[in-house]
């Protein structure tokens, strides 16, 4: 469990990235921070592994204040996936994945063996192990990023807009993969995105943030869709434009039932009820 207690981050120029933020992130669940640029979501994420230290307030992991922990040791125990992948360009894929185990003194051959298994875990072919990062596609690199984050078998996985730089099709594919993976490994995951659809696709708990890290609403995707807290949330999830209010529309010519939004734009078709 990760807990933010009255956390504030103020920059030297006086502006607040995050102001008096309190929240509990339950274990083995996916919490997604979603908000526009400047909403402080990345700042919040980076406070968990002490890449950012709060001006005041506490961040607790399983009841322990991270401020009292050695940052290097703490970071090795927390998986971290970055938008720009952050893979080391001069290390082969297997060596990139094995980074943290090697830093922790795991023998080279054992670390490599585990890296190969992790390639399987994230759905990559083992033949990629001896390539360099720039020889892989963006989507493949992101999978390697996830494999690296899992290498030390951390309890916590931080993901900072990990799928922001890949094309929409690969992005959906990676979201599905992440859901499948989370079903197997069940980590405490903290995910940052500015894409509300992505948040709804992967979150157990969605945290919608306004500027300055102020919480607009916390809840499951269904709760937020059913009861948007205010105009800001409605706008953010697209409910104000009728994007979330869907209707059925029968097409007589081929007997298909379309699902359309408030403005009549098709959003999908009605499938068979799975019961």
């Amino acid at each position: 469990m990760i807990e933010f207690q009255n956390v504030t981050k103020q920059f030297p120029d006086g502006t607040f990235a995050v102001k008096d933020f309190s929240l509990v992130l339950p274990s083995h669940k996916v919490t997604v921070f979603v908000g526009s640029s400047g909403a402080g979501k990345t700042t919040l994420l980076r406070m968990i592994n002490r890449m950012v230290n709060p001006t005041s307030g506490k961040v607790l992991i399983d009841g322990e204040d991270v401020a009292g922990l050695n940052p290097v040791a703490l970071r090795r125990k927390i998986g971290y996936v970055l938008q720009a992948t952050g893979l080391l360009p001069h290390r082969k894929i297997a060596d990139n994945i094995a980074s943290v185990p090697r830093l922790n003194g795991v023998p080279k051959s054992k670390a490599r063996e585990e890296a190969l298994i992790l390639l399987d875990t994230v759905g990559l072919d083992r033949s990629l192990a001896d390539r360099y990062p720039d020889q892989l596609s963006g989507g493949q690199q992101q999978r390697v990023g996830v494999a690296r984050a899992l290498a030390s078998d951390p309890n916590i996985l931080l993901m900072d807009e990990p799928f922001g730089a890949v094309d929409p099709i690969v992005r959906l594919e990676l979201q599905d993969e992440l859901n499948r993976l989370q079903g197997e490994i069940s980590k405490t995951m903290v995910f940052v995105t500015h894409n509300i659809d992505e948040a709804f696709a992967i979150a157990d708990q969605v945290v919608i943030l306004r500027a300055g890290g102020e919480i607009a609403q916390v809840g499951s995707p269904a709760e937020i869709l059913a009861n948007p807290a205010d105009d800001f949330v409605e706008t953010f999830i697209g409910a104000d434009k009728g994007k979330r209010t869907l209707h059925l529309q029968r097409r007589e010519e081929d007997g298909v039932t379309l699902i359309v939004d408030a403005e009549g734009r098709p959003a999908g078709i009605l499938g068979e009820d799975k019961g």
Partner: protein
Amino acid sequence: MSWLVDNFDLVARLTGNHAILSVIPIVLGFVIAVPLGWIANRSHSLRSWVIGGGSFLYTIPSLPLFVILPYILGTRITDERNIIVALTIYAVAMMVRTAADALAAVPADAVEASTSIGYSLWTRFWLVEFPLAGPVLLAGLRVVSASTIALVSVGAIIGSANLGYLFTNGKQRDFLEEILIGIGASFLIALVFDIAIVLLGRVLMPWNLRKSPASKSIRQNAVGVY
């Protein structure tokens, strides 16, 4: 050519000594300049001190330095340690800016990412920054190598037994062949060193063999500084 045959032992001895007098300052200069370059990137004021200091050192003329150093080091004027110290100073002066630029050009996201997954300052330097700065550092080292080998010959004026002796002696005797042989041997050392540095780079930086256009242009810029 008969002069070379008759004096082959002398030329070989001078060449060997010339190579030794070159390699020590090249290595020492590199070892000193890289940490200085790292320090230079810590802050703006440190950078201007380190880079400015390097430029200043490089403006000291070599001959007076050879003469002054014995007073500072307490060595005899003919001691070759004076030459080694003087050339190390020049090597540092030349290398420090390249080292600072090379380390500053390491991709910020690689540095950031390695910190955020748990590299300490020390492991990050050795495993991330230093190797990624490698191609540019190596380019700088090649310039330092050529320059140092050329500068060693000045030491002949204060009695050091290196290829410079063939220049002063040939000049005194108005004997062109001896001078040309000195130039040829000195060129040979420079060539061997250069090839050695390039090969070392290939062995130590295998990822760099697949030359990407980006790293190539950084290298060219680094050489262009001089």
